[in-house]
């Protein structure tokens, strides 16, 4: 399905780097409730991608992994030990330290982490038994069966609780300081990353298998530099199933990037002018080209002003996540507004809490949103003649449009602004269509938006986490040890064979996709070679038509061998409709589409010599009162196999007595021509020599003679029959090739 807009400008609201208003507001996506029941994995649920890297005290993400296996057992004193096997992330992540694993909000329990296999050694199951004097804990009974966990980071967790404390069923949380290992664009190293360009590259390669040739890695590297230099880092979990395009559209804008397609390649570009080192450019900008009246095609200038309602002051409330080294984050809001405006609203909420762990990041995004909305007053669409810019302009470039406006009053004014090039269309005819967004600059020729974003910084307040009361930690909050990987080899587990999860379908080879080339090319389209192994696909409709009038098989019956019909054999329509008419055609397989009517208004046909090396088929016309001809569309019967006979080569001679070899086929050569036939009847008893097929001749004689015969057709086969019915007769003849 294609969605067609009547006016390309309708798309411009989504272009020009504007960050649209979210359709709905809700609680922060990055918030985690700690004291909840442990979550179980569900088949079909997306496997999360933990993408983060804690650098210089910024970043990391607290995750609440789902359990795939569990084990519950109680001691003699009814202490319950709950063990969970948890899937942390797609791919390999950094090792988790002791201080970073929680159950509820408490650093308790022990764990073992691994990659690409099952973690730990516990056997899943409910091993709770009643103990005298104690209440039996009610632990889940369906505890999982185990799997191979290929390509996943997993963790086996275990904690023991005293009798009566039912906290064995609480959610396990892990603070991840280094997420999935990906190739990092900036340092060409495989490891955890917090750069959204690295994440985009990972998703392009792994979610949609975009060929490398279609990925503009140079622009991704530039985007990675821009986000890294300006502190726009991604520290979050990708867990909600969404289309990759939607994810890109909704996420990149919060890193002040836009996804573009340049020359067909997937690319990104910063939404702000930047310096070579990736920093935001606040100095004077330069433009690539100046368009004047001499470039613009008449009547192609179209300007659209942004309604004031869209430019009213508002407060951008940006949600982000304060992520200290404790691991448990605090959701924060940053209110970004122009001084003295929108003090009590309206508010527009943008939730970055799922991935943004930096206040400056949140504030700069908020500043960009309100600055762009306030200062971009109009957009422009122009058509221009091709010129030197044809080979140089690219989306994102700045251009200047300077036009003189001369009104009828004679007062001249000038339209002279800088624009950012959103879209460039190059037609075959040479005309170039440009869609442009106003690029506001100040007196220094610097970008107004860039200056405001660059100057926007957070207040730097660190909110306390609100952690009070007696600590429930058993493990130390300074224990940076990494527990030993105790996992077993997958083959040590009693797991079903890999093939048990597959249903391999045997592929049926379709007919040659190069048209009907798979069918014997010597036959007309739609015909079947009996000597070959390929035939047309069955046509149910065709079969239904035939069967409706009592026709079965190919619709023909043969007096001789149906697989090797010979001249003299009779074929007939095996069924038919009352009042129907049958017409027989001879088809030469060497001539595409060539057919000759050989019989009509008869239900039978006797194969003749001229049918040799050809096929015969019939068409049955059933009465159809609705047709102008009185008959419906023909139903094809047959065709017969190619009529083949054993033929002798020319020149050929033969002799015999009574009976002898009565009928011989001689190949005298194809095409027009004449030949010589000589005979000897033996001198006393007359014999009859008959030639048919390519020539016609007959003589009854006891004498000898010869004659020159001209072919009556271009066929090559001559049938020679000798009738010598009387005892004691002898005969001979010879025939030449055609001359």
């Amino acid at each position, binding site marked *: 399905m294609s969605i067609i807009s009547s006016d390309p400008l309708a798309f411009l609201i989504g272009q020009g780097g504007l960050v649209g208003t979210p359709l709905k507001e809700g609680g922060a996506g990055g918030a985690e409730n700690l004291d909840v029941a442990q979550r179980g994995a569900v088949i079909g649920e997306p496997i999360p991608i933990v993408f983060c890297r804690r650098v210089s005290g910024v970043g990391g993400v607290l995750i609440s992994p789902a359990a795939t296996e569990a084990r519950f057992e109680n001691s003699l004193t009814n202490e319950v030990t709950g063990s969970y096997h948890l899937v942390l992330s797609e791919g390999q992540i950094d090792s988790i330290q002791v201080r970073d694993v929680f159950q509820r909000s408490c650093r308790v329990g022990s764990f073992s982490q691994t990659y690409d296999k099952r973690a730990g050694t516990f056997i899943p199951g409910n091993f709770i038994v009643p103990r005298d004097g104690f209440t039996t804990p009610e632990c*889940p009974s369906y505890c999982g069966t185990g*799997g191979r966990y290929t390509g996943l980071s997993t963790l086996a967790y275990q904690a023991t609780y005293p009798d009566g404390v039912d906290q064995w069923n609480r959610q396990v949380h892990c603070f991840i300081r280094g997420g999935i290992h990906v190739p990092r664009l900036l340092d060409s190293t495989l490891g955890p990353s917090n750069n959204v360009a690295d994440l985009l590259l990972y998703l392009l390669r792994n979610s*949609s298998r975009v060929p490398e040739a*279609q990925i503009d890695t140079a622009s991704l590297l530039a985007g990675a530099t821009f986000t890294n230099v300006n502190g726009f880092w991604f520290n979050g979990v*990708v867990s909600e199933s969404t289309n*990759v395009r939607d994810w890109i559209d909704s996420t990149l804008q919060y890193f002040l990037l836009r996804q573009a397609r340049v020359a067909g390649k997937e690319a990104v570009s910063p939404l702000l002018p930047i310096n070579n080192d990736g920093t935001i450019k606040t100095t004077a900008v330069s433009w690539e080209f100046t368009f004047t009246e001499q470039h613009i095609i008449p009547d192609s200038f179209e300007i659209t002003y942004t309604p004031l309602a869209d430019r009213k002051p508002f407060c951008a409330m940006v949600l982000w996540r304060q992520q200290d080294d404790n691991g448990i984050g605090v959701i924060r809001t940053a209110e970004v507004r122009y001084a003295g405006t929108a003090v009590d609203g309206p508010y527009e909420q943008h939730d970055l809490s799922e991935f943004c762990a930096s206040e400056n990041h949140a504030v700069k995004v908020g500043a960009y949103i309100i600055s762009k909305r306030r200062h971009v007053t109009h957009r422009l669409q122009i058509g221009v003649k091709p010129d030197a810019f044809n*080979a140089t302009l690219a989306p994102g470039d700045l251009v200047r449009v300077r036009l003189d406006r001369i009104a009828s009053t004679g007062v001249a004014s000038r339209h002279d602004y800088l624009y950012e090039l959103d879209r460039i269309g190059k037609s*075959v005819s040479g005309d170039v269509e440009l869609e442009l967004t106003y690029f506001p600059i100040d007196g220094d020729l610097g970008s107004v938006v860039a200056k405001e974003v660059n100057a926007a910084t957070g207040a730097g307040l660190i909110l306390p986490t609100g952690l009070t009361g007696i600590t429930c930690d058993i493990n130390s909050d300074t224990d940076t040890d990494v527990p030993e990987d105790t996992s077993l080899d997958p083959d040590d587990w009693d797991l079903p064979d890999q093939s048990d999860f597959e249903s391999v379908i045997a592929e049926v080879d379709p007919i040659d996709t190069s048209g009907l080339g798979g069918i014997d090319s010597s036959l007309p389209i739609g015909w079947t070679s009996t000597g070959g192994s390929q035939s047309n696909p069955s046509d149910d409709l065709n079969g239904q038509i035939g069967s409706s009038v009592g026709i079965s098989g190919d619709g023909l019956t043969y007096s001789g061998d149906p697989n090797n019909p010979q001249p003299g054999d009779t074929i007939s329509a095996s069924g038919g409709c009352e009042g129907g008419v049958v017409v027989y055609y001879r088809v030469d397989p060497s001539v595409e589409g060539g057919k000759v009517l050989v019989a009509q208004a008869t239900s039978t046909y006797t194969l003749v010599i001229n049918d040799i090396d050809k096929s015969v088929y019939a068409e049955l016309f059933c009465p159809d009162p609705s047709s102008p001809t009185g008959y419906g569309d023909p139903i094809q019967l047959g065709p017969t196999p190619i009529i083949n006979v054993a033929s002798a080569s020319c020149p050929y001679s033969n002799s015999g007595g009574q009976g002898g070899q009565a009928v011989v086929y001689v190949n005298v050569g194809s095409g027009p021509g004449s030949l010589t036939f000589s005979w000897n009847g033996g001198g006393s008893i007359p014999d009859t020599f008959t030639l048919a097929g390519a020539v016609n001749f007959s003589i009854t004689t006891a004498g000898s003679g010869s004659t020159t015969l001209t072919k009556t057709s271009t066929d090559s086969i001559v049938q020679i029959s000798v009738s010598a019915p009387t005892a004691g007769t002898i005969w001979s003849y010879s025939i030449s090739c055609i001359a």
Partner: protein
Amino acid sequence: MARAQSQYLRIFTGSTTYQRWQSYYVNTSVTWAGASWSYQPFDADGITAGEVQSESSISIRLPATTNVIEVVLQALDEARLAELQFYEFDAILGNSTPQTGQRLIASYLGEVVGVKGGFTEIEMELGSSLAPVGAQVPPRTYSSRLVGAPCKL
């Protein structure tokens, strides 16, 4: 300057090129960029560059000859890439072979994502292999092979 514009179309996968066509120099093969480009009277849409929303795909119309159909269908079946390039040059300076100084003014690289047409013309659609539908993130989900029968808590 007599401005002229020629189009070159290359169908390839990785380092293997299956077809090189040009549509400007009629009934002749020309050498350009170190390779021979045979004549094929194709016609392409203009090339648009910009934000993703504004550039979905482009179409190239070709004569529906046996050779073209075979090439195009193979490209579709095997997800081959096609690169379309527009060159601009001054026709007064020469019109029989590609000029050394001709300028690349636009190019598009896309996967052959669709083919349709009539009896005499076939249309090849080039687009992104980043499918608008079907490409999901995260790319994998829990399966029986990966986790067996998960626990029910």
